[in-house]
């Protein structure tokens, strides 16, 4: 594959996303996030409202229309995302940058068959015959380890389990061979056993295809086992950047708080540690 160079497929510098608030002003949900990403796995961890999801959506250009996105620099493979047209952004979405959402119950269109929804992505980005599109969709379904893709192809989302739905979602997002996948809490809505299965599938696909991955989650442990690097976000800012193995070296008190909250086998703790949130971290 002749993709972008390893070091900076995605460059984000001082990204800010703001939304109008009730008082008539703007409230920043993302307040100056910067990072670079190559063909690697980056985890973004934070609690709800920390701005991690909005960061992912801003990269795709999916910020709600009333929101305002600014940055010093936001580039994908040398393409300036801030100044590219709506049409260029659309061509990137699904074609080169894809996103997996949290819950297949809501993120799959309930009145469209799974196969049609997968084929649709391909149709949006490539000129293919109906037959070829179907074959590729079936092949992608196979890649997400769906055993009888012909049957699943014709099913509607409500007819499959959550895990199956999420695999179909991944197939839908990967069929056009994107270079970067943003996975926004892709396993949070699933049962624990299914979570592990799905992560294994995702892991293999990302490795085999040499994609970059932004893995957004609130689950520090999950991210630390799955990603190469971790950004910890709090109140719209990156408070710390860690390598996956370096959890114990965390400097920031918020991250340390998170690490301390992780249960360890064979350890009795009383009282349970609680997370400390200080207003000055948000400054």
């Amino acid at each position: 594959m002749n993709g972008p160079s390893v070091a900076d497929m995605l460059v984000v510098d001082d990204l800010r996303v703001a939304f109008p608030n009730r008082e008539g002003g703007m409230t920043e949900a993302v307040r100056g996030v910067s990072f670079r990403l190559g063909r690697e796995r980056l985890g973004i961890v934070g609690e709800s409202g920390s701005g991690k999801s909005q960061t992912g959506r801003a990269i795709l250009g999916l910020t709600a229309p009333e929101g305002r996105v600014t940055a010093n620099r936001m580039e994908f493979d040398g393409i300036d995302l801030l100044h590219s047209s709506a049409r260029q952004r659309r061509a990137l979405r699904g074609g080169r940058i894809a996103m997996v959402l949290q819950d297949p119950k809501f993120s799959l269109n309930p009145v469209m068959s799974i196969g049609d929804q997968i084929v649709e992505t391909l149709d949006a980005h490539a000129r293919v015959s109906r037959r070829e599109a179907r074959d590729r969709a079936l092949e992608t379904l196979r890649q997400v380890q769906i055993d009888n893709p012909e049957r699943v192809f014709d099913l509607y989302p409500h007819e499959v389990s959550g895990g199956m739905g999420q695999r179909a979602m991944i197939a839908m997002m990967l069929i056009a061979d994107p270079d970067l996948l943003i996975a926004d809490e892709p396993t949070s809505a699933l049962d624990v056993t299914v979570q592990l299965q799905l992560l294994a599938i995702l892991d293999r696909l990302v490795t085999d295809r040499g994609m970059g991955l932004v893995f957004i989650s609130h689950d520090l442990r999950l991210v630390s086992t799955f990603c190469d690097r971790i950004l910890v976000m709090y109140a719209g800012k990156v408070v710390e950047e860690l390598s996956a193995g370096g959890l114990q070296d965390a400097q920031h008190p918020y991250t340390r708080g998170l690490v301390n909250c992780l249960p360890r086998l064979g350890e009795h703790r009383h009282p349970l540690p609680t997370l400390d949130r200080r207003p000055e971290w948000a400054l």
Partner: protein
Amino acid sequence: MTIAEQTRGGGRRSARLLRGADTVGRFLLVIFLTYLGLLAVTFFIGRVIPIDPVLAVVGDRAPEHVIQRVREEMGLNKPLWEQFFIYCRKVLQGDFGTSVLTSNPVMQDIRRAFPATIELATLGTIMGAGLGVPLGVWAAVRRGGVADQLVRVMGLIGYSVPIFWLGLMGLLVFYARLGWVGGPGRIDVAYEYSLTPVTGFMLLDTAIAGEWEAFGNAFSHLILPASLLGYFSLAYISRMTRSFMLNELNQEYVIAARAKGLTETRIIWRHALRNAMVPLVTVIALSYAGLLEGSVLTETVFAWPGLGLYITNSLQNADMNAVLGGTIVVGSIFIGLNLLSDILYRLLDPRTKTR
């Protein structure tokens, strides 16, 4: 409350008659019960409330033995439940009795008047849905824009203005002052007797006969009352479409569709509207039913010889057989439309199918 229920609750009147029914058996039972309710109510109105139906037939000066005989002939000396049973049997056979006003069987009168009403209500609904759905979609996509304001204003006026008054003012402006449209009635008298009714629909009959002049004339008579009904239908359908679409556009699958790189056009029309169509079908069926009902007032204003005018004429002459016959027919159509919208609902929403 589920999202689907909330959106449906947005309708002023919701067709939930059959929604709880899951099996064919229950389905039929619900229809049966509803129909029985309709018959019971009309029976109650016709037999129990008036002072004495016998006196209405023979007059209050008839001798006692005549009154007795008529009472027996009408079956009024039988117990109430038996009367009701006989009544149901007659109605199901299409026998609504004889109209005092026209001395025809009520069913025959209704059959003659019916096409005029259907023609009007159908054209009105086609206008309302044909314009209302795109307008509502546009209003939802561009919130606060021109279409959004238009939908809002049209809705407010549609819910506030008396339809018969608007019809009168329409006649005043477009017929009397501007002369753009034909006046009351379905067609000018000059054409009326040269035409052989085939379908009973004026537009079709003139077209079949190849009488294009008459066709044009019939159309000029039809356009004003149909636009009037169309306006009310448009006001309702566009408002509902807007609110269903706003609901759908907030769903996660729309974000997923954007993330796939689909065009906005495709997302709006193929994804969001396809989902909004599920409750919309009910709304459109209800608006059709509402227009049939509104025809009572509209047809009076436009002297339109349909079912509505038939009912009001009979009302003013205390012709109860005709009034109740008309009520049962309109009520049956309501039940039928409820049924139809439920079937369409099931067809459109794959989640209601079980494999």
